[in-house]
């Protein structure tokens, strides 16, 4: 993969993730400290385009950012190189996407 493109994607997703993580952590504090029950939280998130979009973007950014970061670590700490390394990177990205969107659907989707 093009090193420059990976560099760009890694930085761009980092820029995205910085505010997203802050909001996400703030949200956790608000929801738990405020004493909201699971049912009350789901009532607010289900069918919400805002939270669907927020966490959808979150998952996309995490999948790209995490996979590229893990790729760098694997390149330094293992002998994985070339196509094997790319395959593992893509597998990690798709795994994060699948797990992430499953969670988003559970929170935002209307049963």
């Amino acid at each position, binding site marked *: 993969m*093009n*090193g*420059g493109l990976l*560099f760009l994607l890694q930085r761009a997703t980092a820029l995205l993730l910085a505010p997203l993580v802050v909001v996400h952590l703030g949200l956790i504090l608000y929801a738990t400290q405020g004493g909201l029950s699971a049912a009350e939280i789901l009532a607010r998130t289900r069918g919400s385009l805002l939270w669907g979009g927020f966490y959808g973007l979150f998952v996309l950014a995490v999948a790209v950012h995490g996979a590229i970061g893990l790729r*760098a670590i694997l*390149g*330094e700490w293992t002998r994985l190189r070339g196509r094997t390394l790319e395959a593992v990177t893509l597998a990690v990205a798709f795994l994060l996407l699948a797990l992430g969107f499953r969670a988003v659907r559970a929170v935002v989707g209307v049963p």
Partner: protein
Amino acid sequence: MADAAVGDGRMLDVRIWRGREQGELVPYRVPARANQTVLDVVSWVQRHLAPDLAYRFACRVGVCGSCAMTVNGRPRWTCRTHVGRLAGEGPLVIEPLRNLPRIRDLVCDLDPFLERWQRAGGRFVATSTRRDPLPRITPDSRSRRAVDAGIECINCAVCHAACDVVAWRPEYLGPAPLNRAWTLVNDIRHGAREETLDRVGGDAGCHACHSQTSCSEFCPVGIAPTAAIAGLKRSLLRRLLGRGAP
């Protein structure tokens, strides 16, 4: 002996690596002197105690870059490292540079280091002949200042030894070759700017750098290869986005 006259009778405890990849730290006792460099210590051991001790030096004044060694765990130019300024009371431990194959005692094989300079596109490609007029380069132009910041490298391999990414990624070009590439990318006379940029990206190039800045921390002549590597990342990004040189 003349140098015996300036000593005060104190002795230094010195341990020097003897052997190749396998070897041991051998203890020596060396007379302490005023204004004594680590290279002076090694030379004294070689002349008085261990004639078969292998080490490299040439200019003794910090110009040639031959005498770099690991001193108390840190890469240093030994000819300009004064024993008296080294922190700690323990023995002086002198080993060959890290991240390079060991030939014997304190001598490393520098081929893997110098080969990287070629791989990084570090060879100047002329675009004019001696019959052409000299190009006019403003000394305070941005590109010329970038070249000035990195051009005084003495090829001592201290940055190569200091870099953890070099230790982790055998294919990584390393700080000095990337610094060289950055000076060429900024040299308007260089005829292979794009080729040099092609060579310095990716996992073996500037994108592998974590900006840990060990190279800049240990560079004996005060160059900051980290800044050069950041410059290469910027240039490659600009190229990717379809923008030219800044």
